[in-house]
């Protein structure tokens, strides 16, 4: 396993974790463009642009792009989050050059008017789909409540209105601001021929013009609120809570993840035994989430409407007890064992390394081997976890409930 990095003259960074024994090659363009870079007027443009990348370039139609991706037998996709858009493909090593050329090409899409209007319909369908699907966009709605005027309060998909009114010109302007080569990384993991990767990327991306692309990454000022959205057709009640946590570049994020595993993992955690094992909730989970400059803990609860208030109180009590009494050595050891196995098993496929390597570099400009990650978890002490509970008390949060209940009281 070897880490390599290089930067083209126009600022495009190329990084790779090369494993000559892997069966596949995973490739991805990671763009620092997401909902936090948008304004109200163009809400959803990053995600819409991700769709448009597949709709054709000056030398390829949309059908050509789709067909060629399939001809390489690739498993390819793209996604957009609050702070990045990623285009990726997993191919057999033989197809590395061709995949790099194709992905490079779609990073300079034509944004043709007729494709734009057609794809708008697909996005509107996607928005409708998530509105129908549990937990009915509750995490995003809760982020809007928690983050207030901070850039992370923005919806990734935008709204039917914002997407409906968007023009190709607005998208073009946004593209020029965010898709500067200095704002993009080409990441590869698995069986990678790095020298060839740099050569082919230079050939196809070396001519991209560079622009200024900055991002504000202030720490958020957490807001506490408790909101209820009535949805009569739902069977279950869904509640999302957000509290403060470490940011992506902060080393206490390992302690934060161990804490979340102890309090709110899907199995074997305090919340599991108190709420899920007795069948009081379908799920009750705590999870950290890191961004540039700020971080949060999500708490997800799904249960019968009539049990919601009691369950929220149970979660509040679990958090309060942890803040007061901390955790036990035994819990910390078990959480470390669990995460250790999870990291090792989760890294077996070379494609599964693409995101940890890419996101790590994008957020921190730092490469970590699987061993580095394991060591970081192993080094966490009881005091580190206690410090997290003090610095980021989970009882101080914003909540959003959606489901059959019209009214719901906050826990005391």
């Amino acid at each position, binding site marked *: 396993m070897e880490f390599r990095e290089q930067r083209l003259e126009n600022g495009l960074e190329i990084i790779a974790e090369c494993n000559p*024994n*892997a*069966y*596949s090659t995973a490739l991805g363009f990671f763009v620092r463009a997401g909902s936090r870079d948008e304004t109200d007027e163009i809400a959803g443009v990053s995600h819409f642009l991700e769709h448009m990348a*597949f709709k054709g370039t000056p030398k390829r139609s*949309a*059908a050509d*792009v*789709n*067909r060629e*991706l*399939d*001809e*390489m*037998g*690739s*498993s390819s996709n793209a996604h957009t989050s609050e702070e990045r858009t990623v285009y990726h493909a997993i*191919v*057999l090593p033989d197809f590395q050059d061709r995949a790099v050329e194709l992905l490079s090409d779609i990073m300079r899409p034509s944004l043709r008017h007729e494709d734009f209007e*057609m*794809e*708008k*319909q*697909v*996005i*509107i*369908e996607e928005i*409708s*789909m998530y509105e*129908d*699907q*549990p937990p009915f966009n509750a995490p995003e709605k809760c982020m809007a409540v928690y983050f207030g005027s901070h850039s992370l309060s923005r919806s990734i998909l935008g709204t039917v209105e914002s997407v409906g009114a968007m023009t190709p010109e607005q998208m073009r302007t946004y593209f020029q601001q965010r898709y500067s080569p200095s704002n993009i990384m080409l990441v590869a993991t698995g069986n990678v021929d790095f020298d060839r990767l740099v050569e082919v990327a230079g050939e196809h991306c070396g001519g991209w013009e560079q622009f200024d692309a900055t991002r504000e990454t202030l720490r958020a000022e957490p807001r506490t609120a408790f909101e209820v959205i009535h949805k009569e*057709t*739902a*069977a*279950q009640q869904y509640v999302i809570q957000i509290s403060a946590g470490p940011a992506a570049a902060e080393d206490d994020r390992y302690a934060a993840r161990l804490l979340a595993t102890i309090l709110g993992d899907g*199995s*074997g955690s305090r919340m599991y*035994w108190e709420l*899920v*094992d*007795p*069948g*009081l*909730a*379908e799920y009750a989970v705590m999870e950290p989430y890191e961004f540039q400059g700020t971080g949060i803990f999500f708490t997800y609860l*799904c249960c*019968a409407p009539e049990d919601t208030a009691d369950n929220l109180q149970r979660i509040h009590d679990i958090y309060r007890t942890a803040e007061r009494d901390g955790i036990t050595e035994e819990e910390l*050891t*078990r959480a470390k*064992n*669990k995460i*250790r*196995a*999870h990291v*090792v*098993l989760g890294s*077996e*496929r070379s*494609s599964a390394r693409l995101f940890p390597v890419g996101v790590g570099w994008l957020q921190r400009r730092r490469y970590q081997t699987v061993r580095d990650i394991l060591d970081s978890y192993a080094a966490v002490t009881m005091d580190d976890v206690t410090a997290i509970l003090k610095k980021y008390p989970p009882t101080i949060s914003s909540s959003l409930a959606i489901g059959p209940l019209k009214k719901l009281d906050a826990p005391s």
Partner: protein
Amino acid sequence: MPQTIFSHRYENGLALVAEPMDWLESAAFSFLVPGGCSRDPADMIGVANFTCEMVQRGCGSRDSRQYVEDLENLGASHGASVNSVNANFGGAVPAENLYDVLSIHSDMLRRPHLPEDQLEDARQVCFQEIRGVEDDLAQRLMLELRRRQYPDPVGRSAYGTYDSVGKIKSQHISQYFEDVYRPDETILAIAGKIDWPKLKDYVGSLLCDWQTNPLQPLESSVAVRGRHHIHHDSNQTHIGVAFTSVPYGHPDYFQARGAVGVLSGGMSSRLFMEVRENRGLCYTVYASDHSLRDQACIVCYAGTTTERAQETLDVLVAELKRLADGITEDELNRLKVQVRSALIMEQESSRSRASSIAADWYFLERVRTLDELNKIVNDLTVDSINTYLANNPPGDFCIVTLGEKELETPSGVS
């Protein structure tokens, strides 16, 4: 692709099938036990799922909490699920802990406590699942589609209803467990870093004295099929279409599988192009094959806003019917590369291989090697698939929709 598959059948009928993958640090396992919901009494659907929940609440020397904590300390990611024919207990673990995890699972399959004082907790877990499916409209639709496409009991959903799960008593769970958790139709598949002779002996020491009784044959009814609408005030209308196909063990299976690949095997596949890309009708559209031992079907799904649902259903059905006119050389070539890539990449994952060899053994009582599969796929021709499609044109569609408005049945569909 050099590959070795080992298998052994113990005297009590238990099948062990294993694939060494020495380049990995993990081992993945899958226990397929004949504890599916087809064996639920007709008035008590949900017993299989309830039993699956109960067996995980303590076994051997471990109580419910110790069971979970020991598995976690061993780094086992584990899960259980129930379909119409099997209960599946599987997971992956750092290779050095495989034997300990198998030993815990052996206790679970043979010496579960089925603790009476946890019966109500487990029942509540089952109720949570029932409510969860009510909110997951796409899943609810697909469960109804399968229930109508297949005859009862193999078409039924494992969750049951509030009413049926509410009736289940402790003795029903014990009886179900006694009847169907048995070695002779159980398959244990393991892939990863393993030593076959040691593994065979170890599994034998855990399970070879597991005794069995005769299992009653299942009686089957006739499939309902036809057209059905579920009213729900949702933004999208969810559309499910199913039609009969050939099961995994059938000589024509890969002809049918090739046709499904052309429909839905990638971004240039027909459904993706015609329904989503060229018309912008939906975000999600797919077709996939579903196989039991003796019957099978192709299921298709599309989710779209109400006003465009009729056009979506019409285009979807038209594409299914157009399949009978045949596929092209380009389509087949793309499909072959995709299958070849997927087969090679499976070797990076012990979990993928464990579930593949478990499924192969269940359907065929042998495992097709990657080379054999590669050859089968290479031997597919446009002619062979088109002959199959001409003789078995998609038709007799079972259509289920869920949404605000009922849709018109497309022309040419009875």
